[in-house]
């Protein structure tokens, strides 16, 4: 019996292939461009380390007491922690042929975590430096209190704005993730 021409499967499979083929030369070119970009990453990391090293050195030379030196150490340690977390976020170990639902779930969890303000977690290692540095600025500066508090108030307001905005976008993703989890549990 001939296949029903209105059958969704028949309609789907009878579609004409795209006219422009992706050639092997194009693929090699894309792969080369990707590899070139990847090679720049260590150079970028090295530059960041150099800059942070320079700032740390300057801070250390200008440190007159234990509190200043502690702030400098917390700054350097916080930066190392940030790099580690950023590296894990940017370059997760992955299997190209991971089962489709597991891959989708992992990507959705990552996206959801980002939407819920997960990016700020990356900056968490710098929190001790910010706290000690903040204490230092507040206790030692002669400026008026509102001037001393202004940077911290701005930082807090930005964090609240970003988090609230992202959380509203997370609701839909969360519902889809629950549905996928249900399906995977079935």
């Amino acid at each position, binding site marked *: 019996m001939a296949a029903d021409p209105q059958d969704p499967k028949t309609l789907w499979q009878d*579609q004409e292939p795209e006219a422009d083929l992706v050639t*092997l030369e194009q693929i090699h070119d894309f792969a080369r461009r990707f590899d070139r970009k990847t090679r720049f990453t260590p150079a970028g990391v090295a530059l960041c380390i150099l800059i942070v090293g320079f700032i740390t050195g300057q801070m250390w030379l200008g440190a007159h007491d234990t509190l200043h030196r502690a702030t400098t150490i917390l700054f350097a340690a916080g930066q190392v922690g940030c790099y580690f977390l950023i590296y894990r976020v940017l370059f997760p170990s992955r299997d190209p042929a991971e*089962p489709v639902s*597991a*891959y989708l779930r992992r990507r959705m969890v990552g996206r959801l975590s980002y939407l819920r303000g997960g990016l700020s977690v990356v900056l968490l290692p710098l929190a001790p430096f910010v706290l000690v540095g903040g204490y230092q600025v507040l206790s030692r500066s002669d400026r008026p209190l509102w001037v001393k508090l202004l940077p911290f108030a701005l930082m807090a307001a930005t964090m609240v704005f970003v988090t609230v905005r992202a959380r509203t976008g997370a609701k839909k993703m969360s519902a889809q993730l629950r549905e996928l989890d249900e399906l995977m549990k079935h």
Partner: protein
Amino acid sequence: MPTRSLEQDRQYLEAAAEFGPALDRLARGYEADADLRRDLRQEIHTALWRSLAKFNGRCSLRTWVYRVAHNTAASHVLKHRSRRAFVGLEKLGDVAGDDDPERSAVQRNAVQRLLVLVQELKPADQQLTLLYLEDLDGAAIGEITGLSPSAVALKIHRIKAMLARRFQQGGDHGC
């Protein structure tokens, strides 16, 4: 390594020859915008070529190809999520046509309806629907998605009902 690269090229050409048209349809199912669809096709083919360096035969080539393609497309969908809401029919006008104009007009209309249906679906449902439309059986869909046979059977049942219902509705008015 040149030897690996030649072997990788050979495996890719073999996979592209066998699954190229299915990958084109998959890209259409995920992306309505012609420019983004071209990008997605290139991404899928490049990801497939790169992945074949790691292909060790732990699953069939078909499973491998579909997994890589769907995973790449899922990343694409999540990346462009904010742009995606509803897909207009005008976006689908550039789907490759048929040489017979009469058959083409009717067929294209029906195919466009089908594409809109698929593109409106959530990523997980989209994956299952696309695999179902490619005529893969439950076991193969289960292997590609990693879902249990019962979950796949349940979903396929719902997909069939949804397609029958919505396609019938569209068929009454669409052509």
